[in-house]
């Protein structure tokens, strides 16, 4: 292990430019992938905020007594698709109308507005079919006169989400593939640059395992350093853009995962390159 470590460290020292280039290549590949991830994360965050506005409102009959309404509200709140269910009295409805709509500013009699139950749908259940199903269940209560939830809004939001998710997956795979190809090519160059050394190692009786180990360690270190640098660049970009647009940054497990991903790519890239090289010679 000591020898492996020494060889790995020495190979960094012997070809500092090539090592730095490898780290930079990995860093920039992961950075572009990370930048895409950051955009996707922020888009998802914003989109989630819009989706939270999906709300079902069930207008109840004037003759419904308070106890019946309260029981229904707590029953609806226990639906698996429902995040929250709140009763809205006639007075609260008037207050909201006066706040949101100018023409109600001078109205003080709440008797003509119906009481209602406002239902917020849980994340993951905000597709048109599920929202429709929940609305139908609520409409089945005898005291419910009418149920509204903005079917067109829900439908359009769902379409946007589908297109964004599909595009995100395709772009994400493309970014990841480009990053992996660039990283693999970079590692391959470092292996080829040391082809003579490898052939000498083998001639003096080094086993393939012995030849491979320093490369794997070097690949892992290059990947981790590249991942770390990518994270730093990403944070700098975030700090810069964040001055103008409020953004969220990657959470800690995600950031650590990014560095680990860099290390894994470095390790696998090295393993593959050395394996291919040793198989050929």
């Amino acid at each position, binding site marked *: 292990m000591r020898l492996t470590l020494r060889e790995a460290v020495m190979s960094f020292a012997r070809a500092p430019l090539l090592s730095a280039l490898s780290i930079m290549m990995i860093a920039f590949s992961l950075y572009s992938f990370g930048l895409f991830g950051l955009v996707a994360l922020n888009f998802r965050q914003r989109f989630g905020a819009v989706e939270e506005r999906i709300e079902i409102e069930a207008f109840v009959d004037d003759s419904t007594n308070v106890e019946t309404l309260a029981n229904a509200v707590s029953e609806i709140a226990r639906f698996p698709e429902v995040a929250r269910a709140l009763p809205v009295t006639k007075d609260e409805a008037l207050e909201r109308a006066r706040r949101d709509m100018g023409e109600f500013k001078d109205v003080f009699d709440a008797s003509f507005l119906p009481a209602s139950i406002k239902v917020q749908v849980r994340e993951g259940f905000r597709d048109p079919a599920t929202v429709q199903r929940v609305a139908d269940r609520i409409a089945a209560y005898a005291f419910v006169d009418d149920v509204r939830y903005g079917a067109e809004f829900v439908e359009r939001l769902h379409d946007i989400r589908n297109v964004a998710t599909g595009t995100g997956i395709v772009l994400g795979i493309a970014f990841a593939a480009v990053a992996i190809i660039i990283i693999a090519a970079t590692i391959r160059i470092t292996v080829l640059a040391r082809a003579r050394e490898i052939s000498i190692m083998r001639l*003096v009786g080094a086993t393939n395992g012995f030849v491979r180990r320093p490369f794997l360690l070097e690949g892992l270190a290059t990947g981790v350093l590249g991942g770390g640098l990518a994270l730093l660049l990403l944070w700098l970009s975030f700090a810069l853009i964040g001055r103008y647009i409020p953004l969220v940054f990657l959470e800690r497990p995600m950031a650590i995962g990014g560095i680990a991903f860099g290390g894994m790519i470095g390790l696998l890239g090295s393993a593959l390159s050395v394996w291919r090289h040793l198989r050929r010679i």
Partner: protein
Amino acid sequence: MIRFAHVTKEYPRTGAALKDVSFRIAKGEFAFLTGPSGSGKSTILKLIFLEERPTAGEIRVAGMHAAKIRGKEIALLRRKLGIVFQDFRLLEDRTAEDNIAFALEVTGAPRDTIGTRVGRLLTQVGLASKGTSYPKQLSGGEQQRIAIARALVNDPFVLIADEPTGNLDDRATRGIFQLLGDINSSGTAVLMATHDLELVRRHEHRVIEMNRGQIVFDSTDPAPRAAQER
């Protein structure tokens, strides 16, 4: 110790490099492998240290069947062989000492013994004072001496030398040849490929002559010699 029996080696693009080659190298023997460029000398050496595999025939090196050994066994076999090339194949970014020590380190030799052995070998090849020099600071003859020291570090039973004097002037050639003779005198067999016929003529060692992938003369074999005499 080394035995070739009806060995043929063909390459997909260039065709047959060796055709039905048979010979033996005995323990402690010194043999020249001669012949023009492309006659198959280097192919024979590559087959011995398993850089290549035969297309047909049988090769045995130190009792191991060349066609059957795989992976780690190849590495273990190479540790029993000393290999020297015309272009020295030293690691340019390591000192002479480190180049020799490296061949010991890959075998997992105890660290405390490496320094002593390297020092002894440097003395043996006459370069005790050049241990800390880098290959570029050494002459061609000195570099080849370091390469020979590296080849001897694991006490091989045979030293395989592929044109070891090909890049050297007369004086360095004589020095290297003297060194190979000394190594042979201590019991290590030497198989040396060369096209320097002058060198071959000056010494009384066995000669295996190759031409177009076949042995056309073997000084230990009475039949071809008789044919030549006729």
